[in-house]
Structure formats: structure tokens, C-alpha cells
């Protein structure tokens, strides 16, 4: 993968349009892309109307408008109280998985990427090959053996079963590697070395600050991956008290079947909405950072 980096260009340019000319805005193009925008937000709009409906309205009223009753507040209250308020528990679990799992993944990837980019040591080439290979290995293909291995280690049905696999993000490592290579000037490190600063100290006092956009970007990818994780919890967990939101919602959907069925589709919808909100807010808040981090760290000829 022949990759080089231009870290600075985007930052210097900011997000403004090209300076060589200010292109005229095109109505045609806007309308054309507008269709794509509608496609993107249509299901979310459907969801927004869905959360205002009770069960009967949900299955009888038009999807893109309100139902007979406005049940948003009832739904919200019910989501948080249904089944002993387990939704809150799922929410907190997800937070734990994200903070520890995605947070750990970011730390490991940052340190690792930095180490690979800025140091020469024996086996570095091997790490490069193995990690790149790992990106191509389907994560879910590993799920079954991981389950078996973890079950022998007594880790299944514990939070570790979700956290440990989340700690490794080969793509994050790669992103950070490429980013750090450009973002941290080698001369700066050498100057610090001449001054007698330890590598760790240099990392914390000098390099870390320069790596922030990359870290935020890696963190966001890790957060999304952890927040959306479904397959791994599905096979690893059987105690509902350990579920993340995704698996919990699926459980509620599955509750509608069989002897003793309790269909709660309206709660599934409201719960789905509540699952999306925090992650969307995270994206919006951190927008400034990750966009520069991504363009800086992104692959380019």
C-alpha cells in the first residue's frame, strides 16, 4: 500500500471552499444530492414518528406521520421501567463497553501506531505484515473460535468477553501509524533525546498533543464499532444484565414470540431511537476533530 501523508494541507485550508475560485452553487446538483439525503434520513424520520406511537398506532398508521395518540412520553417512561428498568442497565453496560473497550483500543492503537511510526526496532516489518493481514481477516470469522477459547478461559458471560476483543483495532493502529508518521516531526523527538528526556516523557509532553486529531478519529471508529457491536455479545453473553443495548433491543424483539409472548414493538422502536441519539451527539460534538483527523490520516496517493 503505497501511502504517504499530507497532514497539514487540510488544516491550513480549513473547510473553506477552494481559493482558486468560488464555484457557483448549483441548484441541479443540490436537488440531485437532495434525493440521496432523503434516502439517508428517511428511515430516521420514520423512526422519529415511530417513537410517538403506541403499539396499535405503530401497526395501523402511516409511517411518516403521527398516529392517533401522541405516546412519546408514555413510550419513554415505559422503556425505562419495562422489565424492571433493564434498559438503563443495558445503557450503562454499553457505556462501560465503550469507555473501557473503545478507550482501551484507542490507547493501544495510539501507543502502537506511534511506536511503529517513530521508532526502528527488530520485528517492525513483521508487525506491519501481520497487522495488515489481520485487517483482511473477517472479524466475525474469528468469533466462533474466540468464543470457544474464551469459554475455556471462563471468560464467556462476563464483561471481559466483550471488552477484550474490543481492545484491538488493527485499522486504528494503521490509521494512527500513518498519522503519527507525519504529525510528529522526527527532529522534535531527536531534540528531546539530546536533552535527555525519556521516550515516555517525550510522548506525553510533546507527541500526544500533536496526535490529538488522529486520536479522536481512531476513538470515534472504535466507539462506533463497540457501540454497534452485536455479533460478539450475541454469542458471548447469556445474562441479560450484561447485555449492551443492541442485544437488549434484539431480545425485546424476540420477546414477541412463543408461549408467553409479550410483543413490545413500540419499546423496540423507542429503544432504538435512544440507542442512536448518544452516538449521533458524539459525532456532532467531535466533528471538528475527526474531520481533520480523518483527512489528515486518510489514505492518499
Amino acid at each position, binding site marked *: 500500500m503505497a501511502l504517504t501523508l499530507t497532514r497539514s494541507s487540510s488544516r491550513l485550508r480549513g473547510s473553506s471552499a477552494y481559493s482558486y475560485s468560488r464555484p457557483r452553487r448549483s441548484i441541479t446538483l443540490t436537488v440531485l444530492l437532495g434525493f440521496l439525503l432523503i434516502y439517508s434520513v428517511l428511515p430516521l424520520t420514520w423512526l422519529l414518528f415511530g417513537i410517538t406511537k403506541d403499539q396499535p398506532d405503530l401497526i395501523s398508521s402511516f409511517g411518516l406521520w403521527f398516529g392517533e395518540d401522541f405516546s412519546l412520553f408514555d413510550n419513554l417512561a415505559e422503556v425505562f421501567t419495562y422489565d424492571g428498568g433493564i434498559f438503563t442497565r443495558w445503557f450503562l453496560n454499553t457505556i462501560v463497553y465503550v469507555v473501557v473497550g473503545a478507550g482501551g483500543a484507542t490507547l493501544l492503537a495510539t501507543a502502537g501506531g506511534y511506536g511503529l511510526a517513530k521508532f526502528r526496532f527488530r520485528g517492525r516489518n513483521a508487525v506491519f505484515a501481520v497487522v495488515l493481514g489481520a485487517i483482511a481477516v473477517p472479524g466475525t470469522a474469528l468469533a466462533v473460535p474466540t468464543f470457544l477459547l474464551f469459554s475455556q478461559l*471462563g471468560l464467556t458471560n462476563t464483561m471481559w468477553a466483550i471488552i477484550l476483543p474490543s481492545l484491538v483495532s488493527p485499522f486504528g493502529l494503521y490509521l494512527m501509524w500513518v498519522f503519527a508518521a507525519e504529525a510528529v516531526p522526527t527532529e522534535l523527538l531527536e531534540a528531546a533525546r539530546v536533552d535527555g528526556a525519556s521516550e515516555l516523557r517525550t510522548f506525553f509532553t510533546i507527541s500526544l498533543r500533536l496526535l490529538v486529531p488522529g486520536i479522536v478519529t481512531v476513538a470515534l471508529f472504535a466507539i462506533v464499532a463497540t457501540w454497534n457491536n452485536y455479533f460478539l455479545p450475541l454469542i458471548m453473553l*447469556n445474562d441479560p444484565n450484561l447485555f449492551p443495548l443492541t442485544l437488549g433491543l434484539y431480545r425485546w424483539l424476540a420477546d414477541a*414470540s412463543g*408461549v*408467553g*409472548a409479550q410483543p413490545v414493538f413500540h419499546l423496540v422502536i423507542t429503544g432504538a431511537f435512544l440507542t442512536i441519539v448518544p452516538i449521533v451527539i458524539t459525532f456532532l460534538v467531535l466533528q471538528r476533530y475527526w474531520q481533520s483527523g480523518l483527512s489528515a490520516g486518510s489514505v492518499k496517493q
Partner: protein
Amino acid sequence: MKNHTMRRALAAGAGLALAGTLAACGGGSEAGGGGGDGASADEIEAALQEGGELTYWTWTPQAEKQVAAFEAAYPNVDVNLVDTSGAADNNQALQNAIAAGDGVPDVVQIEYQSLLQFQLPGQLTDLTEFGFGDLEDLYTPSTWGAVSQNDGIWGLPQDSGPMAFFYNEALFAEHGVDVPTTWDEYIEAGKALKKADPDVCIGNDTGDAGLATSLIWQAGGQPFRAEGEQVTIDLADEGTTRWADMYQRVLDAGILCDIPGWTDEWFAALNDGTIASITFGAWGPGILEGSVPDGAGDWRIAPMLSYDGTPVNAENGGSSEAVPADAPNKLLGVGFLKWLNTSDESIDEFMATGGFPATVKQLESDEFLGYESEYFGGQAINEVLVAGADDVVEGWQYLPWQSYANGIFADTVGQAWLGETTLADGLAAWQAENVKYGTDQGFTVTE
């Protein structure tokens, strides 16, 4: 999240590297199920009095109240109730926990059809050693037969599911169609309803494996025979063929809606009167009362449709609770199980919200039989349902790998619902896959 978990993990990892065996994956202890750890009724009672903690996995909605009642009766016992949502998830979680050798519950709900699958590899406790043989008379013959196979008692029946024909009487009346009592009439009534209103279907089915096996059972089929490791599969026996011929006519008549059960769409169709009738086990009333509010007063229950006017029935669904061989608190588990499925207190709680018991005493009580359901227009529904239990064909067995078999049902027989094949061909394909699977799994399979 604790340190010792991590340490144990690392220690186990080291052990794993040395041992390098798959032993833990096989699960279970010695073949046939845990032996030599029996106890008398007094010893069980003493254990309950002394107390401790136990874990109970179930998807029974009444479990919470039952557990509360139990904890009131035995204040020293702390029951950790885990809702496993449904049979499929429950089985998978149990299989995983047994494979992991960790987190195995002390008492677990298992459908009758899945008991063998756990019993055969030795994953269940034989309750004979705890004197449970004496409990036989408490239960209906078909449910007791389901939990006592292969020379042991592997669970205690919780409920039973003799089938019945649930129908929306108002809908039939509205279209002037007579309510069928035989399968032939069912087909005719289905056509009549379709003619009266093309949107209405007499039933819905997209090839539910559980329903299909129950209907084969009802038709007198006995396609599966399991004696330990000897398994016989004959999905072309007389009874099975009888069902297939009849049901092929149902499918060809185009009178069923292709709405899968238990989906939002299905609940909607039951509510708005699109689906006119349905075959449920005796647990059905609770489903309609709870989730089909618009049908209140309209629905009735009739005996199961017959082939030639002679009442004949089968079970659909129904569960037992069992004690896994690897249960960490086995004695407490056994005690809880006994209380759960024999005590009046527990069973009354189970019945209070629509549970259909497996115990003769409750089934035959005047109060139960005389109960008039408001939802079903004041009908004494339990009379119909209990009478249906007497007509259940005896001798039915499931496969030792029934959940896997049900999983591949859609791949084979299920294609008949799409018109891609016939039921007879689909059954032949299902047969072939099951024979192959059983043989691969080390069973001696005869066809």
C-alpha cells in the same frame, strides 16, 4: 471485571496450552448424566431450610411471582432469576454455558422437544436419585412421558400444550361461513372466506417447524424413534404422509396468509380480523388476551380439527424445568424445582395469568374447568382444552437434535410454503439431511 477472574483466566490459559484437548467442549460429565449424588426428600428440605443461592433460567412470564412466593416460603434461599426470552435463546445459552463449564444454571426451563438433546450427552441430572419417581401420578401421562425417557427422569413438567382450534367466531359469522371441525371442512371454509373477502385468510403459516411436527403427531405419524444412540427416522410413515397429503391441499388452496407468526405484522393481522383462525397449544388464550385486544369477545376455542370426525390431538409447545448435570448448587436446584412444579402455591401462581398446567389435580379442579373467560365470550375454555389433553396420541418422540432439525426445516420442508417443492419432497429432503446429520454425530440411524 474482578482481578481474580483475570488470574483464573490466565491460569486456565496455561492449562489449556498444556492439555490441548477439547474435553471442555464436549460438556457434561459422564455419559447418562450425573450419578451418585442423590438425596432424600428430607435432605432436600433441609438444604432449602439452610439456604443459599441458586440460578434459575426461564422465559416463563409468571416466574417472577413464583420466585417471590418461593423466597417467601424459604427465606434463606436467594433465587437469581434470569429471563432467557425464549426457547431458542435459552437453549443456545445453555449449550454455551455447558460448553464453557461456567455460568451453568441450577434450574433451567427446557421444552419437551429439546430435553433429549441435552439428556443424551449427559448434560442433565437424573432426578430418579432424588426420589422424583414418586411424583409420576401428579402429571398427565403425555407430559410425564416427555420428561421420563431413556431410563431416567430428566425434568419436571411445567405446562402442557394440547392443541385446540382457536377461531374468530364473529368473523366466520360475518361472512356466513360455518366453523370447520375437520381438516376437509377447514379447506372448504378457507375457500369460502377467501371468496367472501379476498383479504381474509382462515389461517397463517409460513412453515413453522414446531407446528408441523405437532400436526404430524396429530395425524398419527411417529417419524422419530430414539433409543439411546439408536435413532430411526421415517418421514414417510403412514401418519406423516396423511398430514402431508392433507396439508398440501391446504397450501394448494391458497387459503393461508404468508404472515410469519409472532411478527408485528402477525399481531396486526390478528387484531384487524385478517386471520380468522389459528392452531395453538393450550397456552394460546394468554396470547390472544394479552396481545390481540381488538378480538375480545369475538374469539372461541373448539376441539382440534380432526381427520374423520374421531377426536385426535397432539401437544404443541410445553416445557419442563430441569437441573443441569453441572449445576453448581444441585441440591438447592432440585429442591426449588420440586417446589416449582409440584406445590399448589407455585402452580396457582402459574395459572393465575393464563398458564396451562401439567398437573392432574389442577387440570381437573372444578374451579379451573368452570372458569368462564370473558375474552372468549364467557366460554368455559378450559373444559375444551382439558378434554383435548385426553385425545393426545401416545408414543410420540422428538429427535435428539430437534432444535437443529427445526432449524433446517425451513431450508427443506419450508420451501413447500413458497411453492418451490411439495411437502412430500420437502419431507424427503428433511429426512436426508437429518439422516446425514445424525450419522455424522455418531448415532446409528435407520430409515
